[in-house]
């Protein structure tokens, strides 16, 4: 009786809806499914039968739905950053599959799901780490627009909660480790699940379609990504795409038979493409070895997985987030390598590497201290070294003062939040919310104490009186990279003392130039060459170009008007092959300037302006795919253009939307607005110093081999992804629409939300209006939706902690 009443009420609300209102969404997430491969297969016909190799995708999306064949990732073509944009509709907040905190070396390993399973099994975690971070930053997921009970998420990177029943049914055991060897094998290969789990997830999705209360469903598959990394053959990759087509068929048929068929939208979306070719293996270049070696600076290097060089069982241990590869010839030989790693590498995705180096001035400080602690320094030299040391300390302190002040403030706020959350804890109902709150509390406490330690270590450093017999290890902060390096520091990075040791200048002071051995990392990386050039179409240079943020206010010689840029990105492809990308406004306006010999001297950055021509990074000028006629190109490129114009002009070029993507990737984190949150303040400290982009068919994978293919860079093959929609009669979705206008990942969430009737004008992305009219209307209070009040609650959450009650 009560159920009937409920159903009636639901029916009444349903009939009160506006026409063209979708009420349920099913998202099929195909990791790494390349847009170009789907496009190519859809163009094929069996010569005998006339049939498409992808009959379901063709029927469901191409003929009766919406297909956006020009859809691209925005920023690096990497899973975690890309899904973060797709799943939130917000600008990129996570910039790699792993992020390291420069001050504490805490590693945020967003892709590693095994620790999450274990923590979940022992009730120590509720959400995947990427979701924990989004919660800390108060960025809601698409699925968060619905009551949690109205959602069914599958296993994925941005996973809220864990469907334990599914897992249990799939493996019939207390843990998801029915076969540890198999699970570990999969973990090693990437984010992928065994077929039985995948089948079970599909079954539970299809079963959930029968439940009208459930409004958001998704199903993640990482198979294409997994296969294509290892196997470059067309038949293997096409077989996976055909499998996805069959999945579309099963899910769509189930939707058609479900009670909300008319009001359901089915989306097929991918986070990036894949740079793979049956004619070439992707070649790895080992940056860990480079940085450990003499040319790279003899660093102790931290990675998030064991490099394959070790090839030991330890390499399979899935609970590791930080692995140290020490250098035998380190200039800090007397110290314990694990106390003083000086390079953090994020090599995931493999077509790009993110590199964080210890602040070059901390190296100088450390090296000087090591000299001063020894007894046998000649007195004049000792005095000069002591003066140089004092100067260096003062300079570093001045440089970091602003951040330290802000951190003190944020830490005080964090401490209050911890107290607030602890006070709330007893009042939170048992279950996932308690786990979530406890996990959050643990994470915050770890941060608070690590940061207090880091700040304390800095105070020790600033106050220290160096001298003979005072070991540097008592003074130099451990497991600490310090301030991000400036362009100038990266161009003249102090790696060690010169072979001749400290030198005096004519003025009796330390001769800084001759005392330290320095490396220009831009040049070093770009000039790398290998000896064995054995494949057609794969060159001798592993590095295409190096990108780094550059402070606009330091740039000397910008044309009038250009100083108004909000931020800038520098691309280094050689001394005379450089590009400055200036960005302003939101959505972006962008201007690219060809440059040469950009140099940072003491914070003043000069460069030579050059003409547009071939050979610059991104090859815009000579690219036949660039949509501006050759004769007008130089003129077009000389002006500020909107990001939409850039996307339209460049998306079919070799680097597709790289200009917009680099701007998104390297945009400064929001702030600093004092008193905001610790988590936002920390975003600046997880930014890498350098983003290194691999040449075509090159990769930086160090934990294994990915000869099949890779992604992560800005080449079109890697950025070109998939976006398709199909909908029941009442969804307002248009039918048989091919959207030729290019869009990027930022458009996915607002498009879906619009069709579902959520009005969120503050989302920055442009909805794909060709898909159908947005069904926004006030006062809707449909079943399953999180109420405005609940979303509000999330947004201001000052004391943090509790998600919805």
């Amino acid at each position: 009786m009560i159920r009937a009443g409920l159903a009636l009420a639901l029916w009444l609300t349903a009939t009160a809806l506006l026409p063209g209102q979708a009420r349920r969404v099913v998202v099929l997430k195909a990791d790494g499914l390349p847009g170009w491969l789907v496009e190519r297969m859809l163009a094929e016909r069996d010569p005998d039968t006339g049939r498409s190799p992808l009959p379901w995708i063709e029927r469901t999306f191409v003929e009766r739905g919406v297909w956006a064949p020009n859809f691209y990732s925005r920023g690096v073509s990497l899973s975690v950053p890309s899904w973060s944009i797709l799943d939130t509709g917000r600008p990129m907040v996570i910039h790699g599959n792993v992020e390291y905190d420069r001050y504490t070396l805490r590693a945020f390993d967003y892709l590693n799901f095994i620790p999450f399973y274990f923590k979940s099994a022992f009730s120590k975690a509720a959400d995947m780490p990427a979701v924990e971070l989004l919660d800390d930053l108060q960025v809601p997921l698409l699925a968060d627009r619905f009551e949690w009970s109205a959602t069914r998420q599958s296993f994925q990177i941005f996973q809220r909660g864990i469907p334990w029943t599914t897992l249990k049914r799939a493996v019939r055991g207390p843990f998801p480790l029915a076969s540890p060897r198999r699970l570990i094998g999969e973990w090693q290969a990437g984010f992928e699940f065994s077929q039985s789990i995948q089948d079970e997830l599909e079954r539970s999705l299809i079963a959930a379609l029968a439940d009208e209360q459930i409004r958001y469903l998704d199903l993640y598959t990482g198979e294409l990504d997994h296969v294509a990394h290892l196997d470059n053959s067309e038949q293997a990759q096409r077989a996976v795409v055909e499998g996805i087509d069959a999945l579309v068929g099963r899910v769509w048929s189930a939707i058609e038979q479900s009670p909300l068929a008319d009001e359901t939208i089915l989306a097929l979306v991918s986070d990036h493409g894949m740079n793979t070719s049956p004619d070439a293996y992707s070649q790895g270049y080992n940056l860990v070895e480079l940085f450990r070696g003499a040319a790279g600076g003899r660093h102790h290097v931290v990675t998030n997985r064991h490099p394959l060089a070790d090839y030991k069982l330890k390499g399979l241990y899935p609970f590791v987030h930080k692995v140290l590869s020490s250098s035998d010839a380190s200039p800090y030989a007397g110290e314990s390598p694990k106390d003083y790693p000086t390079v953090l590498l994020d090599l995931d995705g493999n077509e790009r590497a993110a590199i964080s180096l210890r602040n070059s001035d901390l190296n100088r400080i450390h090296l000087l201290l090591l000299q001063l602690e020894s007894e046998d320094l000649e007195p004049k030299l000792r005095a000069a070294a002591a003066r140089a040391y004092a100067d260096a300390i003062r300079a570093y302190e001045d440089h970091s003062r602003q951040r330290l002040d802000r951190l003190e403030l944020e830490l005080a706020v964090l401490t209050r939040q911890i107290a607030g959350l602890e006070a709330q804890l007893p009042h939170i109902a048992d279950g996932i919310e308690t786990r979530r709150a406890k996990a959050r509390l643990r994470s915050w406490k770890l941060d608070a104490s690590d940061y207090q330690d880091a700040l304390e270590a800095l105070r020790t450093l600033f106050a220290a009186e160096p001298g003979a017999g005072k070991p540097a290890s008592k003074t130099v902060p451990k497991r600490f990279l310090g301030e991000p390096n400036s362009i100038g520091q990266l161009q003249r990075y102090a790696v060690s003392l010169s072979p001749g040791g400290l030198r005096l200048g004519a003025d009796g002071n330390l001769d800084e130039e001759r005392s330290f051995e320095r490396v220009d990392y831009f040049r070093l990386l770009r000039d790398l060459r290998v000896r064995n050039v054995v494949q057609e179409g794969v060159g001798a240079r592993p590095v295409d170009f190096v990108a780094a943020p550059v402070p606009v206010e330091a740039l000397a010689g910008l044309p009038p008007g250009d100083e108004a840029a909000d931020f800038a990105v520098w691309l280094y492809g050689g001394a005379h092959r450089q590009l400055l990308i200036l960005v302003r406004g939101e959505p972006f306006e962008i201007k690219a300037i060809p440059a040469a010999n950009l140099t940072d001297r003491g914070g003043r950055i000069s460069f030579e302006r050059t003409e547009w021509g071939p050979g610059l990074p991104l090859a815009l000028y000579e690219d036949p795919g660039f949509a501006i006629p050759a004769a007008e190109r130089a003129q077009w490129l000389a002006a500020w253009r909107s990001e939409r114009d850039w996307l339209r002009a460049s998306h079919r070029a070799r680097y597709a939307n790289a200009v917009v993507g680099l701007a998104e990737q390297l945009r400064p984190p929001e702030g600093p607005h004092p008193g905001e949150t610790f988590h936002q303040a920390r975003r600046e400290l997880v930014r890498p110093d350098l983003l290194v982009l691999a040449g075509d068919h090159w990769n930086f994978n160090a934990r294994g081999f990915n000869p099949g293919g890779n992604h992560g860079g800005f080449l079109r093959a890697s950025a070109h992804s998939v976006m398709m929609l199909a909908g029941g009669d009442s969804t307002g979705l248009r039918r048989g629409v091919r959207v030729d206008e290019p869009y990027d990942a930022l458009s996915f969430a607002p498009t879906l939300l619009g069709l579902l009737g959520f009005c969120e004008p503050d989302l920055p992305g442009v909805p794909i209006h060709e898909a159908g009219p947005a069904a926004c209307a006030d006062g809707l209070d449909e079943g399953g939706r999180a109420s405005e009040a609940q979303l509000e609650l999330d947004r201001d959450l000052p004391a943090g902690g509790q998600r919805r009650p």
Partner: protein
Amino acid sequence: MNGFLLIAFLLAAAALPASDASHAEWERQRFDGGVELHTLFSVTPDPAGGEAERTPVISVLRDTLGDDDPNNDRLRYVWLLAGQERRGVMKWLIPEPELGDMPKPLVDLAAPGKGVWKTVLRRAVQASLLDPSGVGVRISSRSYWSGRRASRTVRLYEALSVMLLREQASAPGGLTAEQRKQVLARTFLADSTLGGLAPDSSLDRIVEQELSARRQSLGRNWELLRQRAEEEGLIFQPIGMDDEPAIAAMLWVSRADLETPRGPFRSKFLGISDPWKDPAVHEWAGYTEIWRFDSDGRRTDDDAAAVRREELIPLALYSLDHPKIPFLLIDFRSSWKPALRETARRTLEEAPRTVLGMTAYANVELRAAQFALTFIRSRRGAPVQRRDRLRATVAVRQTAQAVDPVAPALREQLAERLGTPTSPSTRRYESLLAWAGAPDGLARRIEKDRGRELARLLHPGRARWTQALTVATVGLYRYREPLSPERLALLDRERRLSTAVDVLETAVESSPRIDVGVELDSVRLAARELSGEPSLDSDTRKRADEALRALAAQPLPEEMRRELAAWRNQGPERVAAGRAPLEGGGLD
């Protein structure tokens, strides 16, 4: 679904032009009574321009019942024909030579599971009875079996290697794509003890998995060797057919580089000793090659483009067709080294069984320990499985003889050390043909097989021993006269029905709507076939009913729904009468 892919792979694999490159081709021989022998030949051209050498690799028997319609075909026996020679590494890999008699079939495609349990039982008996009974029995019985097995395995891999890499696109012969796939898959599976138990429906997936695993090994090993060569300052040369992934790789060291001192040499993945400090390398007087490089660092034959010449000393040859890490085939500084490693490994693997006098099958703890050891060592990359090593060697022997980048002088060295591929002897093939042509050979065999097939249909539900009796009674015909036309017609119909059930089951399972996911004509043909007179076999009847019901439950196009209803109402006779026009393969 993957059938197309597999065939595409086979076709792509044979992209080389037929006349001037090694390839493979199928040849058909017809025998009386509707039986055919399909033989795959590996063809190696004579570099001197003489007649190409044709070596039979594998033969398949197809029972067509005398027509051209594949729907009533049955593939029966597969014979391995490739010869085998014990030289070089092979001498160590195969402890005992195989002295064959008349070829025994590798597998009976009509009953691929046959003999599986016998094999399992034999091994169990050997493990539990023979081993503990005494050292003498133990060693001789074990090495007898393992010698036979190894030899068969080599021939199997040679056949597979030809089928995968050299089958000729322009000469696919009379077998259909499906049938070739079946042969390939079953040959693959013959390599594993329980492989025969795999159902036909899983063949696509199994073969695709095998192929994919192999491609992944090739790529991974290629990349491992290239990276290691790069880090150690060596020259890396992949070896493979044009447009095909490389199957082997050579490592060289440039004589000029020997002057420059280098850091420590890490031999771990390479399995060879430090060349930089080795006097044997510094004073190398053996085979070398002069390579020229262009300004990009690529090897070139164009003198104008060359910017430097280097003299290269060969260090090692590896097979890339090996799981996890490349397999060292030749260490050019010591002819015995890989072979020694091979014997050392054999001893290690067999030690727990032979020396301790216990059996791995009988002792769970020992087995666990052995598994752990194997697991750890395989994780660390030591080549553990002899089967894998055989395969790695066979693949390279095939390729090294066939590809261009291997200089003739080096080719001879390789042949000397690895042994040559399939011996040109056609002994097995000749004895197979002789048997096939003999009066009580092929003809008698097929009569007997057909009789057995009929017996199962006509006398279902009887115990095995009575069935044997029945075979004998049906077989009363066999010496005097062939099966009657009526009996043959019955066989024909039953085979068609069984094929139709397979088609329909596959279709219904593969898509929620066969009009979207499946090729519709074949489904209509199958549905029409099954709507007629039911099979004599109760299992086939049941499956047909279920498949038709599942089909009717789908959202079919209206026209097809009407057809389906009409066929079901038509009655068996008219459906049977209507079959004739369908046999051409087309409908409407």
